[in-house]
């Protein structure tokens, strides 16, 4: 008998007796609590920031001024910055993660693969404040050097300009830091997906004379594509919401900046942390509004990621 038929039998049980009622009652309450949390968060944050949305109108999302004295709160540069930094992060983290996943599943001897898996899991557990302190003292000066070098040769291309000769605090550096935080998430999903590719399929490709490269490109990657996309989106959600690590390496400025080497940028989450301490009452409400915007964006990204992941998991299983 296979697993599925057991589950069908399971449906027949009736909850009787006080012990069972308590057991299932408690777990049902917990489950509905977890279910309702997302709504609670959206409702309470929106209620607390309703004033800001009413005062600022649509300009809250499209304007570029943030001034506590004048009571103007607009987050467009931060929105753009969040997306820009996360995209740079993904551009770095996605190939690295897929490479690590492929390496552990297909290339490395078992012991090395296990060690590397542990190392990447440890990377996932690195607190962001630890990345922050390392990033600002050790990594940022080095990465600023890289940025300067790259700028020297690529500076004429739009998007790589730097007019201030100030390379610290650029989206480029923030992107690297985000890449470090995204890699463990994307890697763990990619490893699962690449590992779940039917080994017979891979053997068949080899038997037909395929090389490692053609097998990866034509068999492994297409089969695992959906899952890897989901993992990349999960990483994107992580990058959009990262606060402290970015706060220390990004020079926050309310100016829209699309040049990755320019020494200033924006990101919503660190902006909230940076302005929270000395915000007035209206300012706090505006920061809560920024939090709502951030939450809705990450929620959509996570929703899409989860939908893709569960669909591709089902496809893999069948």
């Amino acid at each position: 008998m296979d697993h599925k038929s057991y589950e069908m039998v399971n449906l027949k049980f009736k909850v009787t007796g006080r012990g069972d009622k308590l057991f299932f009652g408690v777990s049902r309450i917990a489950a509905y609590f977890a279910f309702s949390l997302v709504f609670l968060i959206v409702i309470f944050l929106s209620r607390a920031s309703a004033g800001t949305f009413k005062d600022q109108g649509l300009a809250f999302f499209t304007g570029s001024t943030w001034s506590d004295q004048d009571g103007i709160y607009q987050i467009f540069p931060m929105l753009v910055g969040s997306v820009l930094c996360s995209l740079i992060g993904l551009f770095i983290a996605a190939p690295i993660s897929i490479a690590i996943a492929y390496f552990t599943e297909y290339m490395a001897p078992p012991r090395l693969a296990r060690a590397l898996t542990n190392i990447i899991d440890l990377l996932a557990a690195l607190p962001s404040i630890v990345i922050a302190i390392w990033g600002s003292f050790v990594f940022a000066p080095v990465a600023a050097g890289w940025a300067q070098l790259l700028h020297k040769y690529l500076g004429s291309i739009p998007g790589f300009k730097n007019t201030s000769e100030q390379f610290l605090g650029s989206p480029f550096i923030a992107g690297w830091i985000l890449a470090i935080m995204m890699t463990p998430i994307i890697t763990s999903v990619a490893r699962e997906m690449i590992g779940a590719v039917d080994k017979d399929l891979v053997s068949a490709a080899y038997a037909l004379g395929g090389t490692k490269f053609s097998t990866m490109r034509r068999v492994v990657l297409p089969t695992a594509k959906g899952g890897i996309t989901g993992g990349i989106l999960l990483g994107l959600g992580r990058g959009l919401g990262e606060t402290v690590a970015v706060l220390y390496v990004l020079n926050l400025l309310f100016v829209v900046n699309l040049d990755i080497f320019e020494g200033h940028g924006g990101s919503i989450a660190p902006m909230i942390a940076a302005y929270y301490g000395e915000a007035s009452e209206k300012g706090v409400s505006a920061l809560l509004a920024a939090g709502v915007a951030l939450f809705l964006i990450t929620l959509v990204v996570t929703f899409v990621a989860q939908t893709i992941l569960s669909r591709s998991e089902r496809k893999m299983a069948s």
Partner: protein
Amino acid sequence: MTTLQSSEFPVASMPWRNRSRKKIVAIVLASAAPLAITFVLAKMYEIPGLFALLLVFLPLQLLSASISSIAIVGRRGIADAILSVAILFLVGIMVALLGSTVVSLLIRGFKALSIHALYQNSFTITSITSLDYGGLGHAILGTTIIVGIAVTLAIPIGIAVGIFLTETRSPMNAAIRFLSQSLSGLPSIVSGLFVFAFLFLTGLVQRAAVLGSIALFLLMLPTIIRLSEDVFKLVPQELRFAALALGAPRHKAFFQVVFPAARSGIITTCLLGTARIIGETAPLIVLVTYLPSTNVNPFSGDMAALPTYIYTWLKYSTDFANQRAWGGALTLMILVGILFTMARYLGRKKI
């Protein structure tokens, strides 16, 4: 009667043993030559490190790997060689970054750590006080209290949700799983803001460390739910049915059969969940004001925690303040490392 000569026995070819001298020379040259050439060129023309690595070493390595693969397997090997080099290069980048983090933590952090630093607090310590005075004992205590409350909230509730998702088949299961997992994307700062809006702005709770615990609880919950559901799913259905067939009520079947079978997995779950939130900084910045002296009451007053301790010292630019921050970061990393190692060690025993 003829006897078989030993040369007539069929011999297993064992192609993996087939290491001719040509092959070995090719492999050694392919791995050593690019490094040597890059080193010499970089010294001669003073090429900056990144360019030496990206524009000299990488192409040379690709070239030499291709040549050696032609020597070994012929033209078909080129793509494979390039793939291998590219993958090793990408893996190397991430390992180097992580290695740099750990090494600089160890080097800079140990300077600030001493026995007295582990139990003293930072009352009356300023950014120019020498490291002979003061420490982060209050922050370790505060982290233990704040994280402890979060963990005692999250583990029973998370496991209860895990029970609901595995032991029942209600039509709501998929929705509950989906929405509770979408919380795993909750940015840590938003969790702090939510607790602020929900409990503080509405006047339900005064400013106290327990607010931070609740924010951490929200961040920990999805991890516990997902992991505990996975662990309970691993317990074979036969065990459940055997217990039920013997006449056990569902809750007894769970607590006396399923739960003990899943125990080591549950312990791992708890440890990994704790490791994930112990260093969360953003919600504590919003909710719990840093206090330089010791406070053990989570329900009133400010409290120190390791992340906010680091955050506070990073605001100053003096050497002593920076070293204290590095010391705090190393302590935090050691705590995470302990939790992580325990989880790996206990998790190895399979159910």
